[in-house]
């Protein structure tokens, strides 16, 4: 079960530079409080958490809740230190888990 995710960040940066990362993922974020077409509540289906690791080390994390709109968008900053892989993971209800990877090349 993979959703479409778009991650925007520069491919390279200078050491010590602050880099903005923007992550957008397709997800219904069904709150669990809405009635469906048949009048019965639609079961909750939300992303619970998002983490970003940089060379294995967590650099950003967020908790997500039912009040957050569909297709959540997260933007945050990291400080570039070494050339390495950034790993973005979304986890949620019904075993939803998705991981995307991007490489950041750091020049001294």
């Amino acid at each position, binding site marked *: 079960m993979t959703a*479409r995710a778009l991650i*925007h960040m520069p491919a390279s940066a200078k050491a010590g530079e602050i880099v903005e990362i923007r992550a957008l*993922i397709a997800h*219904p*974020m069904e709150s669990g409080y809405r009635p469906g077409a048949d009048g019965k509540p639609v079961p909750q289906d939300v992303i619970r958490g998002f983490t970003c690791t940089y060379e294995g080390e967590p650099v950003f994390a967020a908790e997500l809740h039912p009040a957050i709109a*569909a*297709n959540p968008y997260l933007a945050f900053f990291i400080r570039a230190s070494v050339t390495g892989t950034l790993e973005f993971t979304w986890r949620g209800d019904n075993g939803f888990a998705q991981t995307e990877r991007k490489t950041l090349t750091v020049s001294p």
Partner: protein
Amino acid sequence: MKRLGVALLLVAASAAAQDRRKSGTEFMSESTRAMQRDDTQNPAMLWVANGGALWQAKAGKAGKSCAACHGDVAGMRGVASRYPAFDPSAGRVVTLGERINLCRTGKQQAAAFAPESEGLLGLEAHVALQSRGLPLAPPADAATRAAAARGQALYGQRIGQLNLSCAQCHDDSWGRKLAGATIPQAHANAYPIYRLEWQGMGSLQRRLRNCMSGVRAQVPPLGAQELVDLEAWLALRAQGMALETPGVRP
């Protein structure tokens, strides 16, 4: 010389006075505008990305992708800005979505996309993105103009229990509030749109049907001739305005 300068000023002033059309974007909050402007924030880009994958994917008995006939999608620049248009193979005026489905069933020999399906909206948005910034240029052939004329009549016709026409809100009362929302001038230059209220993507016909049920009128089914005619009129009415697809609306 001075007189010529005054004359030029007058011409410029009258041109500005003539075009008082504003895109729906101008009625939105700054944060929503920023969301539309910035492709890295615009959630519609998720659909565009899906459309990009579909453009390359082989489909149907013919085993052909869109790219097999059309090549790179960049070659579709200027296509979305001229729809709805008369299509000789269909023998009627079709929307961009219907045109995509004609390719599906004809050239690819695949099942047509359902109206409002993720795939169709994705492909539509992906193709329309190529024309971003181009002026809307509906074709001037007789059939397309006839559809627009029928659409113009519908636009001015009072419908529903509330007995309202499109023109009463969007021509006479634009800029005023309706249930807390600002009434725009109804220029369809950013469709398909990502609507925050829908939390998803939708076509112009979905939007038109929304208004129709809002005035408690009988709502025609998706793809109905009335809706295509209205689309043709809205395209003519917005002629020359820049295409903004994929738009974000509150």
